[in-house]
C-alpha cells in the first residue's frame, strides 16, 4: 500500500473503511455523509497553519493506517490495571469498537453504546451529536464524524445526581490501526455526573487514535470530566472535545497527557448562558522524543461567567510540549472573571515548551488574569531536600512529581489519582539526573 499525498491522506484513511451500515435515522446518515464530504475537502494541517505552528503532524501522514480489523477482544484480566474500583458504570471500546462483555452499568441512568442510545434516545441525541464538535474546518473532527458508528452515550436525566464515576475506557490493541472513539454526554438540567475518559494500550505499537467528545450541560448541571491519555509511546493521538455550558452550570475538567509519540488535544468550552463556572486543568508529562500539544479555548459568550485554568507541562529528554490557551470574552460578556496559569518545568537543556496564553477581550467590565512560567527545578528546594539526606536524583524526582501532583490531586476519583501518582512517580524516577 502506498501512502497518499498529504492533502489526500484523510480521504485515503476513509477509503479503506468498509461500507458502514446505514442507520434507520435519516439525520444520522446525513450527518455522516456531510462529514464524509468535508473529509474530501480538507487536508491534514501543517505547521503553516497558525493553529498547528508548533506541532508537525507530518510523521502521521507517513503511515498508511488501516481500519480496525475484527480481531479478538482482550479479556477482563488483561484490563485489570485499568479498572476503577469506584466506577458505577464502565464502557470499554477496543480499537474503537464497543465491547459489551467488558462493560457494565449499575447507575440506573443511560450509559450505553451509540447504537443502543440511538435506538432508545434518538430524539435526545439528535440535537447534540455532531452539533458541538465543529467539523466544517476541523479535519480530524470531520474524519471521526465520517466514521460514526460506535461510541459512548451518557444521558444524566433532570435533577439526577450520580456520585460514582462513569468510566469510558478506550483500549488500543492493533498495530497500524486507526480508531475513531466518540463520546457524547448530555447532562440534563440539575443533573450531576462524573465522566472519566481514558485512552490506554496493551502493547507499545504504532496506531492512530482520532477521538471526539461532546459534553452538553443544561441549566444548573454539574459535570466532572477527567481525561487520561496514556496511549502507547509510539501512537498518534488527536482529540477534539467540545463543551457547551448552559445557565449556571458547572464544569470541571482535568486532562492528563502521558503517552503517545505525538498528541494533540483541543478543548473548546463555550459558555452559552449567564452565570457559568468552569475549571479546566491539564498536565502533560513527556520525555524522549514525545510531543504533547494542548489547545484550549474558553469562550465567554455571556455575562457573569467564571473560568479557572491551570495547565502544567513537565518536559524531559528531547521532548516538546505546546500549550495554547485562548480566553475569549465577547462583547456583552460583562462581569466575566477568568484566570489562567501556564506553568512549565523543563528537565533538560534539550526539552522545549511553547506556551501561548491568548486573551481576546471585547467587554470592558471584566477581570482576566493570566500568567506563564517556564523554568527548572528550584535549586533551594533541591538543597533543602538534600540537606535532609535525599540523594540529588531522589530530591529532583520528588520535586518533579510534586509539580505534577498539584494537577492530579484535583481528580475526584481516588483510585485513578493513586494510579496516576504512581505512574508519574515511576516516570520521574526513570528520568536522568540534572543535565
Amino acid at each position, binding site marked *: 500500500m502506498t501512502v497518499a499525498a498529504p492533502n489526500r491522506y484523510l480521504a485515503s484513511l476513509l477509503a479503506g473503511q468498509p461500507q458502514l451500515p446505514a442507520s434507520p435515522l435519516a439525520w444520522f446518515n446525513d450527518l455522516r455523509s456531510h462529514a464524509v464530504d468535508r473529509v474530501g475537502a480538507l487536508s491534514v494541517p501543517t505547521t503553516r497553519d497558525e493553529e498547528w505552528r508548533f506541532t508537525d503532524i507530518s510523521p502521521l501522514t507517513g503511515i498508511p493506517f488501516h481500519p480496525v480489523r475484527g480481531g479478538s477482544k482482550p479479556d477482563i484480566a488483561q484490563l485489570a490495571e485499568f479498572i476503577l474500583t469506584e466506577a458505577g458504570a464502565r464502557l470499554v471500546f477496543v480499537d474503537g469498537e464497543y465491547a459489551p462483555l467488558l462493560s457494565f452499568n449499575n447507575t440506573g441512568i443511560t450509559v450505553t453504546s451509540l447504537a443502543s442510545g440511538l435506538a432508545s434516545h434518538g430524539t435526545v441525541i439528535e440535537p447534540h451529536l455532531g452539533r458541538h464538535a465543529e467539523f466544517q474546518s476541523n479535519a480530524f473532527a470531520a474524519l471521526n464524524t465520517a466514521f460514526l458508528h460506535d461510541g459512548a452515550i451518557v444521558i444524566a436525566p433532570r435533577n439526577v445526581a450520580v456520585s460514582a464515576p462513569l468510566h469510558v475506557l478506550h483500549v488500543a490493541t492493533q498495530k497500524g490501526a486507526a480508531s475513531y472513539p466518540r463520546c457524547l454526554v448530555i447532562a440534563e438540567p440539575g443533573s450531576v455526573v462524573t465522566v472519566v475518559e481514558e485512552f490506554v494500550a496493551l502493547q507499545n505499537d504504532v496506531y492512530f487514535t482520532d477521538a471526539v467528545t461532546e459534553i452538553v450541560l443544561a441549566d444548573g448541571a454539574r459535570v466532572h470530566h477527567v481525561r487520561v491519555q496514556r496511549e502507547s509511546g509510539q501512537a498518534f493521538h488527536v482529540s477534539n472535545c467540545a463543551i457547551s455550558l448552559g445557565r449556571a452550570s458547572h464544569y470541571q475538567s482535568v486532562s492528563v497527557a502521558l503517552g503517545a509519540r505525538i498528541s494533540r488535544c483541543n478543548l473548546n468550552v463555550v459558555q452559552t448562558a449567564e452565570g457559568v463556572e468552569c475549571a479546566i486543568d491539564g498536565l502533560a508529562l513527556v520525555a524522549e522524543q514525545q510531543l504533547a500539544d494542548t489547545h484550549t479555548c474558553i469562550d465567554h459568550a455571556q455575562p457573569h461567567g467564571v473560568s479557572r485554568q491551570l495547565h502544567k507541562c513537565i518536559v524531559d529528554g528531547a521532548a516538546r510540549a505546546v500549550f495554547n490557551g485562548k480566553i475569549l470574552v465577547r462583547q456583552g460578556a460583562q462581569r466575566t472573571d477568568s484566570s489562567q496559569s501556564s506553568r512549565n518545568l523543563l528537565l533538560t537543556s534539550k526539552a522545549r515548551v511553547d506556551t501561548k496564553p491568548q486573551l481576546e477581550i471585547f467587554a470592558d467590565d471584566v477581570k482576566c488574569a493570566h500568567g506563564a512560567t517556564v523554568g527548572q527545578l528550584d535549586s533551594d528546594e533541591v538543597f533543602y531536600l538534600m540537606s535532609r539526606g*535525599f540523594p540529588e536524583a*531522589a530530591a529532583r524526582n520528588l520535586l518533579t512529581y*510534586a509539580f505534577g501532583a498539584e494537577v492530579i490531586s484535583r481528580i475526584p476519583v481516588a483510585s485513578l489519582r493513586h494510579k496516576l501518582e504512581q505512574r508519574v512517580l515511576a516516570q520521574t524516577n526513570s528520568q536522568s539526573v540534572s543535565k
Partner: protein
Amino acid sequence: MIIQDSKTLLEVHGLCATVNGIEILKGMELTVRYGEVHAIMGPNGSGKSTFSKVLAGHPSYQVTDGTVLFGGQNLLDLAPDARARAGVFLGFQYPIEIPGVANSQFLRLAYNTMQAQHGKDELDPLEFDDFVREKMKLLEMNPDFLDRSVNEGFSGGEKKRNEILQMALLAPRLAILDETDSGLDIDALRVVAGGVNQLANKDNAIILVTHYQRLLNYIKPDYVHVMESGRIIKTGGKDLAVELETRGYDWVSAENKAGAVVPA
C-alpha cells in the same frame, strides 16, 4: 554540657568562603566537642548564616580555603545529602515550602533514608505515622500538619517547629540551628527551645546561630562566640550573651580592633 575529655566532633580551621565572588568567611576557627552547645552571635552581615550554610554544603557558597573535619572526616568532600546522612543537620532560617509534597511523605522518606544509612529497618506509612505523632507531641504540634504540603502556608512558628521535628526524627550528631528564634512569639520560642533541650545529649552537639540573646534564656550555651567580618573575634561563656544584650556588639568590635593594633 561540657564533658571532661569529650571527643572532638567538629573542627573548623582557617575556613574562607565566597558567594558570587564576594568573600564572606575570612578564616573561621571553631572546635565543637560532643555534648556541647555553642552559640554564634554577631551583627547582621557578620557571616553567621553563611557559616551554617557552608557547613551544610549549600551550592551557592564556594569554599576557597581552610578545612572542616567532622568526626575526623573531611566534611568539604561530601555532597549535602552525604553530610546529612553523616549526621549534620541544618535547621533553616527560612524553611522552604514544597507544594505538592505531603509533609508526612517528606518526613518519612527523610527518616527512612537515615534508617537505611544506619542499616536499620525502614518504617512503612502506618508505622511511621505512630512514630512521628509521638515526636510531634514534644513540639506541641497539631497532627494536621502531616497532611499538608511541606511548610506550605505554615506560620513562622509552625515552620520552625517542623524544622525541630525533622531534627528529632533524623537524630543528627551536629545540629546547626540558623536563627531558629526569628519569627517566633514567646510561647513558640519556649516550645521550640524545650524541644531542642530534650534532644541535646552527650552524643551530639548543637550550634545555635542567633542575632539575639533571647533564645539563650531557654537554651543555655556552653560557649558564646561573637562573629564579625567573617570570623570569630571573641569567645566566652553564657554570661557573654547577657553582656552583649545590654551593651550591644560595638564594644566587642572596638576591643578587637584595639587588640589587633597591640601586638601580643
